[in-house]
């Protein structure tokens, strides 16, 4: 019974394809999986937009939207109708094909990333040997479409916003990859299903999630920072915030194309949270050993929604970072710390089981964090302002 609830979607898929002849069964199984992904994740996206608006509202001492539907939860339907019926304004000097293909490229690349996430036990669309690498490859392809969007608008400010967005995404891509490499080193495989299975063990009631290890905690924090920057989320949303101030790379898009950019951004947030959950938070495994009776997909989606709430929380709390502060932070603090984290992970691996490795690894990481924090904070001395050209 518990097993059935856990595997209910897999059983549903098998039952549906049993109606087809044997030759068509494999493609039909994949098709059903694809339909599942295309229906579930945009639904979560719609829910995320409502949660974001209401959550930000509550943080800012106000209610969010509360007129459409019960407590405003039908708001995404109103937004969808609005974006579908708005006039699609394309600047006359814009580069036609590139302008059209940019949002398409973004959404396609982001949807591909969902194919390797293990949503539950036996619930991966494609179980690839190099699944993690595939995910990052798809993430890298989004940068090209961001650039295409900015350049094809024939707008200086769009182009500037796009260049900044791409520079930010490339810098934090390195951090993202390196913090995931630590996980790969310990697990010994790039396949996401193996990574989750390695975390699905329990000592006593506590799980073996990587976030509960010193290198895993540091890696998770670095991964979270890089994920926030990759998806242009606050406090790293300068490319997007410029939309509000001057322009951004999706300023010349209206109606459905803008909705596609919006969809692409939020889906990227969901997929990168999903990957973070898989790598550090144990994917679909339950937090305590006595909670394994609940279905695995329930745990995955709970952790995903928890990550989304933390994203929304950070957006409501932190002011935006300036472009140079952002880049300094990436190359001068986060990247060295990630390299140190790799070193500590290797130390962890080769020290063998026992209490000693916990102390040593935690001590190294904590010391490095405090020292680097002091260096980073001491550097900016506020003295009298000096001018380069005014003297």
């Amino acid at each position, binding site marked *: 019974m518990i097993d059935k609830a856990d595997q209910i979607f897999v059983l549903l898929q098998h039952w549906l394809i049993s109606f087809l002849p044997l030759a068509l069964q494999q493609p039909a199984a994949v098709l059903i999986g694809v339909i599942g992904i295309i229906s579930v994740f945009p639904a979560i996206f719609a829910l995320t937009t409502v949660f974001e608006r209401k959550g930000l509202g*509550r*943080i800012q*001492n106000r209610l969010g939207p509360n007129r459409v539907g019960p407590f405003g939860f039908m708001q995404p339907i109103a937004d969808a109708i609005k974006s579908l019926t708005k006039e699609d304004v394309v600047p006359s000097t814009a580069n036609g094909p590139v302008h059209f293909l940019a949002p398409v490229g973004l959404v396609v690349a982001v949807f591909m990333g969902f194919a390797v996430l293990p949503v539950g036990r036996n619930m991966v669309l494609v179980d690839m040997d190099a699944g993690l690498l595939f995910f990052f490859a798809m993430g890298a392809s989004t940068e090209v479409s961001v650039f295409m969007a900015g350049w094809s608008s024939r707008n200086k400010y769009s182009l500037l916003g796009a260049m900044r967005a791409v520079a930010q995404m490339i810098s934090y891509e390195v951090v993202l990859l390196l913090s995931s490499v630590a996980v790969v080193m310990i697990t010994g495989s790039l396949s996401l299903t193996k990574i989750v299975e390695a975390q699905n063990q329990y000592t006593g009631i506590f799980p073996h999630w990587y976030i509960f290890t010193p290198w895993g905690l540091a890696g998770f924090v670095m991964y979270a920072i890089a994920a926030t920057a990759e998806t242009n989320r606050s406090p790293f949303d300068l490319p997007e915030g410029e939309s509000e101030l001057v322009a951004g790379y999706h300023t010349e898009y209206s109606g459905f194309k803008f909705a596609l950019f919006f969809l692409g951004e939020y889906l990227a947030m969901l997929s990168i949270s999903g990957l973070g959950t898989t790598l550090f938070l144990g994917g679909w495994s339950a937090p305590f050993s006595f909670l394994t009776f609940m279905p695995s997909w329930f745990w995955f989606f709970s952790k995903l929604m928890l990550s989304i709430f933390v994203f929304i*929380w950070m957006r409501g*709390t*932190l002011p935006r970072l300036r472009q140079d502060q952002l880049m300094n932070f990436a190359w001068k603090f986060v990247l060295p710390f990630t390299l140190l984290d790799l070193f500590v992970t290797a130390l962890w691996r080769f020290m063998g089981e026992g209490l000693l490795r916990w102390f040593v690894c935690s001590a190294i990481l904590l010391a490095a964090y405090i020292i680097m924090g*002091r260096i*980073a904070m001491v550097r900016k001395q506020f003295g009298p302002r000096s001018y380069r050209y005014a003297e």
Partner: protein
Amino acid sequence: MLGEGILKGMAETAKNFAGSFVSKERLTTVEYPEERIAPAENARVFPFLVYDSENWEKGLRCVACQICEKECPPKCIYIDKSKDKKPDYVGKQQFYPTRFDIDISVCMSCQICVEVCPFEAIKMDTQFELATDDRFGGLLLDREQLAKSNEYYHELHPTEAAEVDARLAEEKAKVEAKAKATEAAAAKAAADAAAKTAAPASPTQAKPEGGQD
């Protein structure tokens, strides 16, 4: 330590988020057309004319002195003085406005007309839901729309209205006392004159009528 500020900030927003469900001071939003906040006592939006008795025409305090028309910075008040006079609250004969229009699309709510009126005739209202789709005169309020009773004034600004009433009553009492004194003096003079000429003295002075019925 690095990151401490971020954590403190996140704790504050979490308190805000959780508190917005339970306490009123963390959720200060009022869902507007269903709930409204009562305006403060010295709130001001657009002027209105005060009248004393039940009949707005008879009791209108405004005597068409046109001071507010001249002092109004954007010149949004239009007054026509009458040709005849009618008695005011102390009984003195005064002019009255046959036309008193305020263009509220121009009025900037500066309250200067209220400050300069010597007769406490124009005061500030707090009604702001005056939007209309009649663009050829819907925002030009005339005498009848502007005239509101003294009881309404008491409802809006109780302390102010009480002060104004006290002052007006004082004025009225002074005028009446003066009138009584002059009447007594005149009666005495007439009695003296009558005593001198031995002709019956007839009271020719009409008693001043009170404004408040």
